[in-house]
C-alpha cells in the first residue's frame, strides 16, 4: 500500500460508522446489527494484525459486512422472528440534528420509506444501499456482489419503483 500506513484507530474511526449503518440497513434487529458490526470490526482488527492488508479497506469491509449479514440472516431466522417481537428501546436510537431537506420529509414519510425498504428482497436491499446510500458506481456494486451490471440495474429498477411508492404513490 503506497504512502503512510494508517493506524488501527484511524481505520476504525473512518470505517466503523459505515459498517454500523450497513448492518442496520441489512438486518432487521438493531441489537443484532450491533453484534454483527462488532464481528466485522474484530475481523478488521485481525486482518490489520496479520499485515496482509487489502488494497482498499472500504470495499473489503463492505464485502465482509455483507457476507456477515447474510450469514446472520441464514443462521438465525428464528431469532429474527423472536427479536421482532421484542420491545423497541428508544434509547438505542437517539435522534440527531437534521438538515432542512430532512426536516421537509415528515416523520410518517420516513417510516413509510423504512418499512418499504424492509420489504425489499435481501439482494435488492444490498444493491440499493451500495448504489444510493453508499454512492458506489453500478460496476463497483456488481463486482462486490458478484453480479452482472445488468442484473444490478434490474434490481435497482425494482427497488426504486417499490420505494418511490412509499413517497406518495409515485412509481
Amino acid at each position: 500500500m503506497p504512502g503512510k500506513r494508517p493506524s488501527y484507530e484511524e481505520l476504525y474511526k473512518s470505517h466503523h460508522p459505515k459498517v454500523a449503518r450497513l448492518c442496520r440497513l441489512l438486518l432487521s434487529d438493531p441489537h443484532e446489527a450491533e453484534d454483527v458490526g462488532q464481528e466485522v470490526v474484530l475481523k478488521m482488527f485481525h486482518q490489520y494484525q496479520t499485515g496482509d492488508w487489502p488494497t482498499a479497506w472500504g470495499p473489503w469491509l463492505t464485502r465482509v459486512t455483507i457476507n456477515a449479514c447474510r450469514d446472520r440472516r441464514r443462521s438465525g431466522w428464528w431469532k429474527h422472528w423472536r427479536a421482532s417481537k421484542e420491545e423497541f428501546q428508544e434509547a438505542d436510537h437517539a435522534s440527531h440534528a437534521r438538515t432542512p431537506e430532512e426536516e421537509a420529509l415528515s416523520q410518517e414519510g420516513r417510516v413509510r420509506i423504512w418499512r418499504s425498504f424492509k420489504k425489499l428482497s435481501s439482494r435488492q436491499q444490498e444493491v440499493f444501499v451500495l448504489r444510493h446510500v453508499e454512492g458506489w458506481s453500478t460496476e463497483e456494486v456488481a463486482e462486490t456482489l458478484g453480479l452482472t451490471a445488468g442484473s444490478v440495474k434490474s434490481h435497482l429498477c425494482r427497488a426504486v419503483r417499490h420505494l418511490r411508492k412509499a413517497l406518495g404513490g409515485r412509481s
Partner: protein
Amino acid sequence: MSECLRDRTFLLMFEGEGASTDQAHLEACEACADRYRRLVHDIEVIGQVLREEPPRQALYRNSRSLNIRWIPAVVALAFLIVSVWGVMRVQRTTSPVPSEETRNESAELVLDEVSTAIFSVSGDTTEIPYSDSDFSYLDTALGEEGAL
C-alpha cells in the same frame, strides 16, 4: 413529438443507459424532464432517509403483522383439535361399555370353543363340522341339476 418516456427508461438513464433518442426527447419534453427531476430527487431523499437512524414506528410494525398472519392458523388448529376431541368423546358415550360379568362370560365362551377345537376327543382332526342346513341346500341343488 414522440411518446413520453416510461419510468423504467428514466431509471436506466439515471444509471447511464438510454438511447440517444430518449435523451433527445428528455431535453425537448418539459413533462418528461420534470418527471426525471422528480425521480432523481426521490432517489436522493430515499438515500438520505436510509442514512439516518430508523424511526421507532418502523420497527414496531413487524411483530404486529406477524401476529395477524398467525392468528388464522392458530384458530384453525385449535378448532381441529377441539373437533377431534369432541368426536372421540361422542363416540365413547354412545357405544355401550360391556360390564365386567359380560366380558368374563364371553371370554369363557371363547375359551371353551378354542379348547374344544384343539383338544377334540374324536381323534379325527380333519373332520369338518356341518349342520343340517348344509344338507338341505345340497339336496336342493342336486335336485335342480337332476331335473335339468
